[in-house]
């Protein structure tokens, strides 16, 4: 009899391998190829009158991103673009931190409830995820407006400030943070917690020394799921932030739209890709999973 190999190594156990062909084609043509095209475009020359690209190699796009010749002809490190990039990183970082501070306790709280309560609470956390981000952003346009609820209760008008962008992003991404951490937290062995309390550990100690390390993979996943999209955000800065502070997302949109400089837009996208890669590497799991 043929030695039985584990299904771990065997493709085709569920069906003929050919069935995955459409997925391969989709993946290569519509995921791989666009990324390659973006990278290539970032090394091409801007088209005439700004439209499209000319197939000539040049580093102009990256030069524009990093260096700037100001109106007087002085070359300097490009503060405009670098400022935008740093601002985006700072914003994404702050949003992630706040989501962690709120999301970790929430996930733990849900995980420690009775099974049926857990299910209900998770559904409650998931519902906003199904609601269109535009509607959820609009809710804050209502709340933070001049004469809106917050203003009527004495708060200053926050609409069209960076605070509004920050609140809108945190609101949009909180469920993304809670869900993966909950997935880790629900597997917590409650007996360990019980033992720790029995031995006289304080609540803080249990939290910091036991619970959080045990859910760290969920936390890492949550960080990646929040930080990366927050870096490339476009909707919230545009609607809530008053369109005043450009972030990478709005800058890329602008270069592919109004400013019609595709190579520069592509170069920025490549930068964003690189930053994404760094985050993913930093938060990846140690053991390989059935992805």
């Amino acid at each position, binding site marked *: 009899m043929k030695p039985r190999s584990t299904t771990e190594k065997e493709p085709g*156990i569920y069906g003929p391998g050919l069935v995955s062909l459409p997925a391969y084609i989709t993946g290569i043509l519509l995921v791989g190829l666009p990324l390659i095209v973006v990278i290539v475009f970032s090394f091409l020359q801007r088209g005439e009158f700004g439209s499209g690209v000319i197939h000539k190699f040049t580093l102009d796009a990256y030069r524009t991103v990093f260096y700037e010749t100001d109106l007087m002809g002085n070359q300097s490190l490009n503060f405009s673009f670098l400022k935008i990039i740093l601002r985006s990183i700072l914003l994404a970082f702050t949003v992630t931190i706040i989501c962690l501070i709120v999301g970790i*306790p929430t996930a733990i709280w849900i995980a420690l409830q009775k099974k049926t309560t857990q299910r209900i609470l998770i559904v409650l956390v998931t519902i906003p995820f199904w609601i269109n981000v535009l509607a959820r952003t609009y809710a804050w346009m209502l709340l933070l407006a001049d004469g809106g609820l917050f203003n009527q209760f004495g708060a200053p008008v926050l609409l069209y400030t960076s605070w509004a962008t920050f609140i809108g992003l945190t609101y949009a991404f909180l469920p993304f943070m809670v869900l993966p951490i909950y997935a880790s937290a629900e597997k917590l062995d409650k007996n360990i917690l019980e033992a720790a*309390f029995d031995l006289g550990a304080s609540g803080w100690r249990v939290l910091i020394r036991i619970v959080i390390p045990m859910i760290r993979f969920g936390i890492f996943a949550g960080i990646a799921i929040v930080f990366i999209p927050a870096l490339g955000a476009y909707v919230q800065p545009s609607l809530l932030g008053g369109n005043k502070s450009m972030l990478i997302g709005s800058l890329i949109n602008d270069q592919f739209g109004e400013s019609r400089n595709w190579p520069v837009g592509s170069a920025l996208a490549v930068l964003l890709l690189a930053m994404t890669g760094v985050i993913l590497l930093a938060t990846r799991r140690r053991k390989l999973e059935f992805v």
Partner: protein
Amino acid sequence: MTKQKSWSVSHLPLIKPIGIASLLFLYLPLFTVLIFSFNRSEDATTWGGFSTRWYSTILDNTDLIRSAKVSLSIAIPCAIIAALIATGLAVGIGRATGKVQNFLRALVNAPLVLPEIVTAVGTLALFSLVGLPLRYSSLLFAHIVMCVPFAFLPIRSRLRDFDENIFEAARDLGASSTRVMMKITVPLLVPALLSSGLLSFIISMDDFLTSLFVSGPETTTLPIYIFGLLKLGASPEVNVIAALLLIIPTLGLLVGITWTATRRRSNEARNK
């Protein structure tokens, strides 16, 4: 003597208050939109009494209805095709961990982890390079690519729950892989296929950024239309549209959950 639990959630500092506060934080804005959709006042942000008058204006809004139709006409085929492609991926590769398979799986799942703006401009750049005009088919392709990684999730998790022995046994009994697929895998995957399709449907209906870049004439989707309205500022009509965008998916989700819960309960009852 029954052992009393010596601790409760309240022993862990701040967990309960923050948990409750975050739920309130998540739902306060949603309820605000819901309530304000019944605001009589023409000033969308200040309350002026209860009225349903703005709801009746929705049906007159031909642009809104057309964009909704466009979105549906993309989301439904996208859901079906993405679910099929994702199933193909899961079934064809199985749990293989070869370098090629891992790479391709990562590639297909990439839209999940990359910022949407990168994939959106990439898709636009690709279409422009090959001269594909921006119309219905190009938008559909872009949506399918976006939905496949989401569609993949329920299928993957269902396959993981399977007892591998069934498949091994079928193999040993001489069944061809096609037979295994048709007789075992697919029937077992049917509930996951439904979740896949539903997930893809919602992702496609809600998508904004990719659609913005890849849309052309005749493909103004619902989110694109709504974004245009939002740029004009708050208005009673937008209040109603936003409220509908809240109510419909929520109801759908609740209906779906109740339905799966009752099915599960009836299955359990039957198996007793």
